[in-house]
C-alpha cells in the first residue's frame, strides 16, 4: 500500500464536556488508527487524548496534544486544544497552522460563552474552514429542529465576523453518527459525513500562496562558494529566477537548487532546499527572498502594527525586555505600545486600562531596533506572524499577527 498522498492539519475547539475527546477517539477508531492498547483505554472510557498525569487528575485536557490518523488518501494531523477559557493561548497555538477548525457545540446546552469566544478567535485567526459540529444529536432524538436552531443562532452571532468558509454538521460522537459515514438516523441532513467534508477541503493552505517567500536558515561557505540552506514557505522557485533579497534591496539570480546532492530545476513550498546564486553576496540568516516580479512584495520596516495574544503566565512588562522572532530573524524591540485590548465577548477594541495578562488579545505598535521585511497576516500567514520572546526567561511570551506596516 502506498503512503497517504496528502496532509491535512486540523484543530479542535469547544467548551469542556461538549464531547471533543469522544469525537477524537471516534475519529481514530473509525479510521482504524487506534492501536489495540489504546482501544482498551477508549473502551474503559478514558479519553485517548488526555496525556499527562495532572490532566487526568483534573479530568481535563490542559495543553495542546497532537494525534495522527489516516483516511483513504490523506494523513490528518490533529491538534487538540482544551476548552477552558484560561487556555485561549492553546487554541491559538493549535489553530496557527490548521486547514480547518472543528468547533464542537453540545446541542442540549447550546452556545456557551466559551464557544462564542472560540468563534471570535477563529475569525480573528482567519481559519480557512470552520466546521461547526453540533454534537450529542442522540440526546435530542436526532431532531432537525434542534440542529437548525443552533445553526440560526450561530449565523446571527457571526454576521459581523468573517471566515474563509463556515459549515455545519449534526453528529453524535458517542454513537458515531455522521462521523465516518453519512448517518441514516439523520436523513434530513444535507452534505456528507464529517470525514467526507474534511476530504474536500484544500490542504496545507498555510503554504499555498502566489507569493514566493523563502528565508535563509544558514549559509555555508565551501571553497569560496556560498550555499544557502533556505526554507521556501510559500510559492515556487526556479533556477534562473530573479530574486530580491530583503531587507537590503539586492537582486540575485538563482544559479542552482538542490535537494540534498541532487539538482532540481524548480521547487514548490514547503521545501527546505539548498540554493546558490550567480552573484556573491554573503547573505545573513533571516534574509527574506522574494521573486522580483511578484505582484505583492513585502515591506521593509521597523514599525509594526499587530494583534497580539499574550501567552506568558507573567504579564507584559513595559521595560523593553522582549525580542521579536519573525521567520529566522530575532530582533530587539525598542518600543512597544499597547493601543487597545480586544473585548472578545463584544468583538470590539477597548482602552487598555490595566496590564496585559495571559490570554489577553490586544493591538500593539512595535518598534524594532532594525528594519526587517514583513507581510501582513492577511496576505501571508507565515511572513505575517511572529512571536515575542522574553529575553530574561526565554519564554515564548506572545504570538502576533501583523495587521499593518508603516
Amino acid at each position, binding site marked *: *500500500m502506498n503512503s497517504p498522498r496528502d496532509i491535512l492539519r486540523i484543530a479542535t475547539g469547544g467548551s469542556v464536556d461538549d464531547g471533543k475527546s469522544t469525537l477524537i477517539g471516534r475519529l481514530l477508531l473509525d479510521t482504524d488508527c487506534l492501536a489495540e492498547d489504546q482501544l482498551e483505554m477508549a473502551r474503559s472510557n478514558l479519553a485517548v487524548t488526555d496525556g499527562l498525569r495532572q490532566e487526568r487528575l483534573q479530568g481535563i485536557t490542559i495543553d495542546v496534544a497532537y494525534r495522527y490518523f489516516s483516511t483513504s488518501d490523506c494523513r490528518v494531523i490533529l491538534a487538540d486544544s482544551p476548552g477552558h477559557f484560561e487556555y485561549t493561548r492553546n487554541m491559538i497555538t493549535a489553530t496557527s497552522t490548521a486547514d480547518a477548525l472543528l468547533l464542537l457545540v453540545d446541542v442540549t446546552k447550546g452556545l456557551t460563552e466559551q464557544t462564542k469566544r472560540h468563534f471570535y478567535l477563529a475569525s480573528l485567526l482567519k481559519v480557512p474552514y470552520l466546521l461547526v459540529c453540533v454534537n450529542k444529536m442522540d440526546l435530542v432524538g436526532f431532531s432537525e429542529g434542534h440542529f437548525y436552531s443552533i445553526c440560526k443562532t450561530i449565523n446571527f452571532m457571526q454576521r459581523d465576523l468573517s471566515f474563509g468558509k463556515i459549515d455545519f454538521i449534526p453528529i453524535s460522537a458517542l454513537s458515531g453518527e455522521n462521523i465516518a459515514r453519512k448517518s441514516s438516523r439523520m436523513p434530513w441532513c444535507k452534505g456528507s459525513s464529517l470525514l467526507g467534508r474534511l476530504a474536500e477541503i484544500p490542504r496545507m493552505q498555510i503554504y499555498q500562496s502566489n507569493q514566493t517567500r523563502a528565508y535563509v*536558515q544558514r549559509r555555508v561557505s565551501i571553497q569560496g562558494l556560498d550555499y544557502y540552506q533556505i526554507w521556501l514557505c510559500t510559492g515556487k522557485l526556479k533556477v534562473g529566477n530573479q530574486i530580491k533579497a530583503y531587507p537590503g534591496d539586492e537582486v540575485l539570480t538563482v544559479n542552482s537548487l538542490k535537494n540534498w546532492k541532487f539538482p532540481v530545476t524548480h521547487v514548490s513550498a*514547503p521545501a527546505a532546499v539548498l540554493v546558490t546564486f550567480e552573484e556573491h553576496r554573503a547573505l545573513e540568516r533571516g534574509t527574506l527572498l522574494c521573486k522580483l516580479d511578484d505582484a505583492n512584495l513585502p515591506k521593509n520596516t521597523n514599525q509594526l502594527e499587530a494583534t497580539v495574544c499574550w501567552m506568558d503566565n507573567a504579564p507584559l512588562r513595559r521595560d523593553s525586555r522582549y525580542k521579536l522572532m519573525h521567520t529566522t530573524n530575532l530582533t530587539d524591540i525598542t518600543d512597544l505600545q499597547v493601543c487597545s485590548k480586544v473585548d472578545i465577548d463584544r468583538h470590539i477594541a477597548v482602552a487598555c486600562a490595566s496590564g496585559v495578562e495571559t490570554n489577553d488579545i490586544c493591538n500593539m505598535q512595535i518598534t524594532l531596533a532594525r528594519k526587517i521585511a514583513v507581510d501582513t497576516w492577511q496576505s501571508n500567514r507565515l511572513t505575517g506572524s511572529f512571536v515575542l520572546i522574553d529575553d530574561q526567561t526565554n519564554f515564548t511570551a506572545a*504570538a502576533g499577527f501583523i495587521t499593518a506596516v508603516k
Partner: protein
Amino acid sequence: MRLLDYLETESIFILRETAAQCKKPVLLFSGGKDSLVLLRLAEKAFWPEKVPFPIMHIDTGHNFPEVLEFRDKTIARLGLTLIVRRVEDSIFLGRTCDLDGPFPSRNALQTVTLLDAINEFEFDAAIGGARRDEEKSRAKERVFSVRDNQGHWDPQKQRPELWNLYNGRVGEGGHLRVFPLSHWTELDVWRYVQVEELQLPSLYFSHTRDCLIRGRSILPAGPYLGPTVGESITQLSIRFRTVGDMTCSSAVESKATTISEVIHEIMASKSSERSGRVDDQVSDWSMEERKRAGYF
C-alpha cells in the same frame, strides 16, 4: 505534496534551525531505525557540509552486540564523531545503581548517564528520534522542548510553538531536546527506510531466538534476562520493533524478512509499538515520570 516529502522537508528545516540557533548540539543515536532515519535527514540537511555536530550513544551495557557493531560501522562510514557514554560507568562512579530483582532493566538508568554527558560536554541541544505517536505524554511535547538546569521537563512550562517559529533559546545550565520526527508515525519511518534504502540491524527482521513470554511481551532470553519462577524459554520466530536495552526490547512473532513484509505486518497488526515495552507497563504514567526526570 506526498506525505513523506513533507515530513522529510519539515524535519530538515527543524535540524537546520537547531544548528543555527544552538551553540553545541548533539545527535542521540542508538542504531535503531528512528535514529538511522534521523541521521539520514541530518546528512541531507547539511550537505555539502558534514553533519555539524557529534553523535552520542548511551550504552546501557545490555545492548545487542549486533546493534553496537552496526552503530560503529554506520558512524565510521559517514566520517562522524561518535561519543559513547556507559551506564556501567555511572554505576561504578556511584551516580546510579541497578534496580532490585533478578534481571533489572537499565532503561531508566540511562537518564543519569545522559544528563551527566550533556553536562560534561556542555551540550545545549540533544536531538532525539522520539515520535509523538509513540506514547501519550509525548503527544503534547514540543518539537523544541526545554529542560531546566536539572535536566527536568515541566509539562506546565512548555513554550507555545506556532507556525514555523521554533524558539531555541535556553537559560543558564538548561538545554533543549529537539524532536525532528515529532509528526512521523511508525509506518512513516518504515516507509522512509524503504524509499531511502537504509540499512538496518538484522534484528528488525525475522529470526529464530530463545524467548520469554511475559504478560503481553515477548522478550529475548540471554545473559541479562532469564526465566523467573514459573517461566520457561520458548524458541520463536520473531523480529524486534525496538532494539534498545535487551531487557526491555520486546519482539513480535514474525515471518517478515524484508522491509515491505514488515510494513505489511505492521499495517495488519493493531498493537502500538510501545505496548510491548516492559518498562512502560510498570505504571501507566511511567513514561511521563521518566520524561520529567530527564529521559530521552
